[in-house]
């Protein structure tokens, strides 16, 4: 082939379009930039965009189309866990290469997937540490949408909190359906839970669309961040852009990137983005940074391997480092996860987030949580063990599809 094909597998319609469309644009921007730099290995890059329309079987179909029909060299895509789960067998069967840019529940490490978003240990645990140590929170509401990511995160957090001596009475766990829009009773319950005289915080793994009505209700029931701060793992600049942030000032979010962080690299990236999308108002957010990092790592690996062949690129990429937009470097680990800095930000009235706390240096992503019974003993290592789910007790590598 005379071009290198880059598949883009993000929903452009349906429920997930809200989040994923931006990522498609980010990949296109990266392709564009790389081509300006002369492409890769002397070839131009060509983006192949498809729309899996927020439909999970369609994700699998489109993945197959990209790999088998369009013969792309790499795919950037997916947002929800289920979409990733749906395409995973396809990537393994056809030996494709997927860069997945969103924070997720972990418990996975595939030979064909590189996870450039945060694992739970790169987001949730540091956030809780901050609340506990800096804000002296004693009572916890773990509120989430009822699916795997919140369930896992909350399970990890519950175990973690209990280990830190928090009483069961002081933890309230609540799950709501996708797209939940009537938060009156739950917010009222949180308010009651939080008025027992102990400092209370909400750890929110509420997903997507449900956040806007949730925050609106918080504001209207006059729960301010000083009373009951909410720290969210799925609410970033882009979500806040759809909100009247005035009443939300002070609520928190934990991410590995904030648009407001003042570094030259970040400034340049944002400027690029604005130039590319031709709109100075557009936000830049964490999954976008993850996409950028993933793309840069891939490009670097291709150059190192001098080919786009999946196996060679996969081998070459491990150990490579590219700079984060917020300073420091992202290094691809043997478990196909990245090292990432963790930031806690407070919501400002302009919809940006101010960093109020950050980890010292980068946290390496952990594919298999140390706080879950089933996965404590599992390890992922694609260099020495050549396995994504190696059980250190039984000394077996399980769950591989090839």
């Amino acid at each position, binding site marked *: 082939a005379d071009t290198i094909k880059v598949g883009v597998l993000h929903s*452009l*319609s349906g429920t997930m379009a809200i989040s994923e469309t931006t990522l498609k644009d980010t990949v296109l921007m990266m392709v564009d930039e790389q081509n300006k730099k002369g492409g890769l290995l002397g070839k131009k890059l060509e983006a192949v*965009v*498809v*729309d*899996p*329309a927020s*439909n*999970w*079987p*369609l994700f*699998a*179909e*489109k993945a*197959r*189309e990209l790999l*088998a*029909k369009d013969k792309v060299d790499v795919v950037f895509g997916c947002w*929800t*866990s*289920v979409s990733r*789960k*749906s395409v*995973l*067998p*396809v990537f393994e*069967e056809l030996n494709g290469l997927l860069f997945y840019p969103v924070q997720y529940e972990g*418990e*996975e490490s595939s030979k064909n997937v590189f996870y450039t978003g945060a694992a739970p240990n790169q987001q949730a645990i540091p956030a809780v540490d901050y609340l506990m140590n800096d804000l002296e929170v004693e009572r916890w509401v773990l509120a989430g949408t*009822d*699916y*795997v990511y919140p*369930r*896992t995160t909350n*399970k990890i957090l519950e175990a973690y909190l209990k280990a830190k001596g928090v009483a069961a009475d002081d933890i309230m766990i609540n799950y709501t*359906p*996708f797209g939940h829009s009537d938060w009156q009773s739950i917010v009222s319950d949180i308010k009651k839970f939080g008025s027992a005289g102990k400092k209370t915080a909400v750890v929110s793994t509420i997903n997507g669309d449900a956040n806007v009505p949730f925050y609106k209700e918080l504001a209207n029931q006059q729960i301010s961040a000083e009373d009951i701060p909410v720290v969210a793992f799925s609410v970033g600049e882009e979500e806040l852009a759809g909100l009247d942030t005035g009443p939300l000032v002070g609520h928190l979010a934990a991410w590995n990137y904030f648009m407001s962080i003042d570094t030259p690299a970040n400034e340049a990236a944002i400027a690029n983005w604005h130039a590319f999308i031709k709109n100075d108002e557009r936000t830049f957010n964490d999954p976008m940074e993850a996409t950028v990092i993933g793309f840069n790592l891939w490009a670097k690996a291709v150059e190192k391997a001098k080919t786009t062949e999946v196996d060679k690129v996969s081998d070459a990429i491990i150990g490579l480092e590219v700079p984060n937009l917020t300073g420091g470097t992202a290094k691809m680990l043997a478990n196909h996860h990245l090292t990432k800095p963790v930031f806690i930000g407070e919501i400002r009235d302009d919809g940006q987030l101010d960093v109020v706390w950050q980890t010292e240096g980068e946290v390496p992503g952990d594919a298999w949580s140390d706080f*879950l*019974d*089933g*996965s404590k003993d*599992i390890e992922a290592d694609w260099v020495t063990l050549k396995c*994504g*789910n190696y*059980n250190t007790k*039984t000394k*077996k590598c*399980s*769950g*591989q*599809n090839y």
Partner: protein
Amino acid sequence: MHTPLLKTLLTERGSQVFLGVLIVTAILVPLLNLAVPADSALHVSTYTVTLLGKYLCYALLAIAVDLVWGYCGILSLGHTAFFALGGYAMGMYLMRQIGTRGVYGDPVLPDFMVFLNWSELPWYWHGFDMFWFAMLMVVLAPGALAYVFGWFAFRSRVTGVYLSIITQALTFALLLAFFRNEMGFGGNNGLTDFKDLLGFDLQADATRIGLFLATAFALGGGYVACRAIAASRAGRVIRAIRDAEGRARFIGYRVESYKLWLWTFSAVLAGIAGALYVPQVGIINPGEFAPINAIEIVIWVAVGGRGTLYGAVLGALVVNYAKTWFTGAFPEVWLYALGALFVLVTLFLPQGIVGLLARARKTA
């Protein structure tokens, strides 16, 4: 009009064409996939085979909907429920087949249960390690649900939109229930990561061909069965019920048993379609229950031409192919194209594509 089934099938133009094309496809596709080298222009890629297999599942589902809607006037917005239940039954079998090959290596528990700290298999998962049992459930789960639901609804004489909406409520309730992780069906992520079916590797081309053939066979069988029903005297009663339910009662037909029977049969067909669908797409998740999907099925039928069965098949193929093509070719604007397709078909092809073909034949 009162000829035996075989004759009906052979003389009716639509059936002839449909069965002919189906048989030819079923023979050619495997041949062109397995026997023709990959670089030949005639080669049918595994991608295409899988895609066709998926379409055929949809076609079977569309037939099931057309049977109740086109012939009996029951506009079901709940057939996704039966489809998904069939799919889950198959998915549970496939999950159990994974055995110790799951990521946690648990011999009994599927990965997601280990992950959620479940210590033992819920009772309703037992037996699914046996193929025959799972296949029984593919038929029984949707069938029983349809029977119970229909038994209540039809004897209460719920009709028209009221029936449509409660079927929608049914599938919506199931959607929410299956989303719950406590239900023990994998929540939002559903069931994935299947390895093999009856010992055949799901990723092998031969298995895919096998599944494709099974689907084509099921579709052909389903079609013939539905056609037989439609052409029988019971078929005429069913259409009479569609047009004037009350009148049919006054001449002595027990409307609810006709409806119940047809409804349950249709649900079983949908369940079979779901069971064939799951191994071919590799995932079953509660999204399959979504009410909007049910509306889409109705639309396939309407686009193809309602009340003809082969129209339903045609509609399912056309709409889904359009979707596949549009989402690849114009990912940014394909909804305009699909939307416009629906609007134009309605305005200019009141009998669907089949009506157009019939008209063309008449004028020719």
